C-alpha cells in the first residue's frame, strides 16, 4: 500500500484563523488507495479543518494539500474530480426525491450519462429501502440521508473519499451498515479519510488511526499496532495529558 502514490496527502499543513487561533499545526499525513485513515480528536482538535482544507473551502496558512497528486490550492476544480465528500449531517434538497438528489450531485461530479437504473443500483448498494428511491428527502431519517450521502459519494466513483464524522448521531444499526459500505469501498481501492469521535469504530475500520490535539497529529498507529494496544486508553491518556498541559 505504502509504495502506491497517495490519493490524499497533507504536506506540512498549518491553518491559523483570522482570530489568531492555530487550528492546524504542521500536519503531515497520507492516505493510500485501499486505505482507511481515521482521525480522532476532541472538538476543535483540527479534524474538520483538515477536511475543509482538502476541499479548498479555506486556504492553508502554510503547507499543501494534494489530491491524487494535484495541489488543491493551485487547481481546486481538477483536484475535486478525484474526491467525494460525506458530511456529518448530510443535508440535501428536501423537495427532491432521493433519485433527483442523486442525479443532480452525480452530474455535478461529472457523471452525466447515467440512467435511472444506475441510480437505483447505487441506492440499493447503500441499503436504501426501495420505497424511498422516489420519495422526497424531507421525510427521510438521518440514517437514510447519510445513506443517500454515501450513494452520492459512491456514484461519483472518485478515488478519494472524505468523511466528516459520518456516524455521528446514527443508531448502532445504521452506523454498522455505514461502516460495511466503507469497508466495501476500501476493498475497491478507495482512499478514505474519516474524522470521527467514535474510537470503537475507528479501530474496527481504520487501517491507520491518528489522534489530533490542538491542531497537531500527536499519535499515529497502524491496524497491526492497535491489535496489541487499547486505543480507548491511548486516546483518553492523550486527552488527559492535554488537559494537564492547559
Amino acid at each position, binding site marked *: 500500500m505504502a509504495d502506491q502514490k497517495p490519493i490524499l496527502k497533507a504536506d506540512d499543513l498549518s491553518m491559523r484563523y483570522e482570530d489568531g487561533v492555530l487550528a492546524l499545526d504542521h500536519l503531515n499525513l497520507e492516505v493510500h488507495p485501499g486505505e482507511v485513515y481515521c482521525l480522532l480528536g476532541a472538538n476543535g482538535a483540527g479534524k474538520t479543518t483538515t477536511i475543509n482544507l482538502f476541499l479548498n473551502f479555506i486556504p492553508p496558512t502554510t503547507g499543501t494539500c494534494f489530491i491524487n497528486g494535484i495541489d488543491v490550492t493551485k487547481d481546486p476544480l*481538477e483536484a475535486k474530480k478525484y474526491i467525494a465528500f460525506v458530511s456529518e449531517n448530510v443535508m440535501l434538497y428536501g423537495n427532491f426525491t432521493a433519485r433527483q438528489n442523486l442525479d443532480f450531485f452525480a452530474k455535478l461530479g461529472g457523471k452525466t450519462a447515467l440512467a435511472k437504473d444506475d441510480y437505483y443500483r447505487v441506492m440499493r448498494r447503500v441499503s436504501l429501502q426501495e420505497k424511498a428511491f422516489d420519495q422526497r428527502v424531507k421525510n427521510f431519517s438521518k440514517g437514510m440521508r447519510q445513506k443517500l450521502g454515501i450513494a452520492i459519494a459512491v456514484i461519483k466513483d472518485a478515488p478519494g473519499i472524505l468523511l466528516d464524522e459520518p456516524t455521528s448521531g446514527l443508531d448502532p444499526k445504521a452506523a454498522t451498515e455505514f461502516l460495511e459500505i466503507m469497508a466495501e469501498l476500501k476493498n475497491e481501492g478507495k482512499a478514505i479519510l474519516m474524522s470521527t469521535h467514535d474510537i470503537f469504530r475507528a479501530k474496527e475500520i481504520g487501517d491507520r488511526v491518528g489522534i489530533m490535539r490542538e491542531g497537531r497529529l500527536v499519535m499515529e498507529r497502524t491496524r497491526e499496532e492497535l491489535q496489541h494496544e487499547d486505543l480507548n486508553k491511548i486516546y483518553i491518556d492523550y486527552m488527559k495529558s492535554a488537559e494537564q498541559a492547559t
Partner: protein
Amino acid sequence: MTGTIARKEILANLLSYKFYVVILLAAVLVATSFFIMTRDYKERLADYSLIRPKPGEPIAVNPPNPLSIFSKGLDEAMARSFEVGPTGITVRAGQKSGNTVFAFFPTPDFLYIVRVVLSLVALLFGFDQVSREKEGGTLRLILANPASRGTVLLGKWLGNFVSLAVPFLLVTALGIAVISLDPAVRFSADQVLRLALILVLTLIYIAFFLSLGILVSTLTRQASSSLVILLFIWALLVFVLPNLGTLVARQMVDVPSVRALSEKRQQVWTREVLLRIRGVGDWASHVKTISAENDALEADYRVKFDRLVALSKNINRISPVASFIYAATEIAGTGIGEEGAFKSEVVRYKNAVLGKRLASPDAGVADYPAFRYSCRPLDRVLAGGALFDAAWLAVCGILFFGLSYFVFVRYDVR
C-alpha cells in the same frame, strides 16, 4: 455545469409552493391590469370620438395611445383638447379616465405591476439563493464537486431567471393575445415592436432585481436577514429614490408656477387690448404681439421646466427603477420626452392656425388645417434617452451580479 445547476434551480422552483403562489399572483395581477386598462383605453377612445374636431376646426386633439394599456404615463395629458383661440391655446378637458378610483390609487397599468410587484417577486426568488444553501448545508456538498463558485452563481441566476421570466412572459403573451382579440384595440406594427421592446426591458428589470437579491444573499449568513435587508432596499429603490429627485431638483431650479404664468399671459392680453382701445396699432399686430409674448413666456417656462425635469430625472436615476420607468414610457410613447414633443407640435399648430387667421381674416372654419401628431420614431426615442436608461438598468444588474461573484468567491462555506 452551469446548465446542471440552472436545471436544478428550475426543478427546485417547480417543486416549491412559493413558485406557484408567486406565479399565480403575477398572473392575477397582470390579467386584472390588462382588463382594467383595456376598459380605460376604450372609454377614452369613446371620449375621443365625441371631442374629435370637425374638419377644419382649429382644435388639436390626439387619440389615446393603445400602448397606454401597458404604460399609461402621460397619455391622458397628451389626449386633452387644445383649442386655438384668437390669441393662443385654451386647454379643454380631454379623454378622461371614467374610473375615479384611479384618483385614489396608482394606475394599475402593466408598468406598475412590473415596477412594484415583479421586482418584489424577483427578490423573493433571489434572497435566499446562497444563504439558504449555506443554512441547509448543501453549499458544502455542491462546492465539494468540480464546480467553480462562478459557475454555481451563474447557474443559480440563470435557473431562477428562467423560472421567473418564462411563466411571466407566457402570462403576458396570453393577456396581449386576449387584448388583441378586442376589435376596439388595434396595434400598428410599430406599436407591436415597441411592446416587444418593453417586454425586453421588463426582463432586464427582473434580471436587475434578481442580481440584487443574490448579491444580498451572498452578503448574509441567514435567509431571514437577507429578506429584511432586501425589503428595505426594495422600498428605497421603488418608492423613495424615484421621488427624491423631484424634491431635490425643486430646491435647485426655480420654475414659476402655472398660475404665475397664467397671470403674466393675462397681463399681456390686457395691455394689448388697452392699447388697441386707445387706438394704438391694428388688431392684427396686437394679436401677433400677444401670441409672440405668450410663446416667449411659454418657451421660457418650458426651458426652466425642462431643466427641472432633466435634473429630477438624473437624480432619480440613482434608482434604476426610475430608469426603467423612463425607458418604458418613452418607448410606449407616453413618456416625458414624448409629451414635450407633442406640446411643441401643438404650439407649431397654433402658429399655423394664427398665421392663416391673420393672413385671411375672413377664412371660414373649414379652412384651418387639421392637427396630426405621430409619436417620435423609435430610433429617435432610443437615441433620446431610452437606450441610455435601458443600458443603465442592464449595467446595474451586471454590476450587482459581478459584486455577488466577488463576494461569493470569498464566502465562508464552512
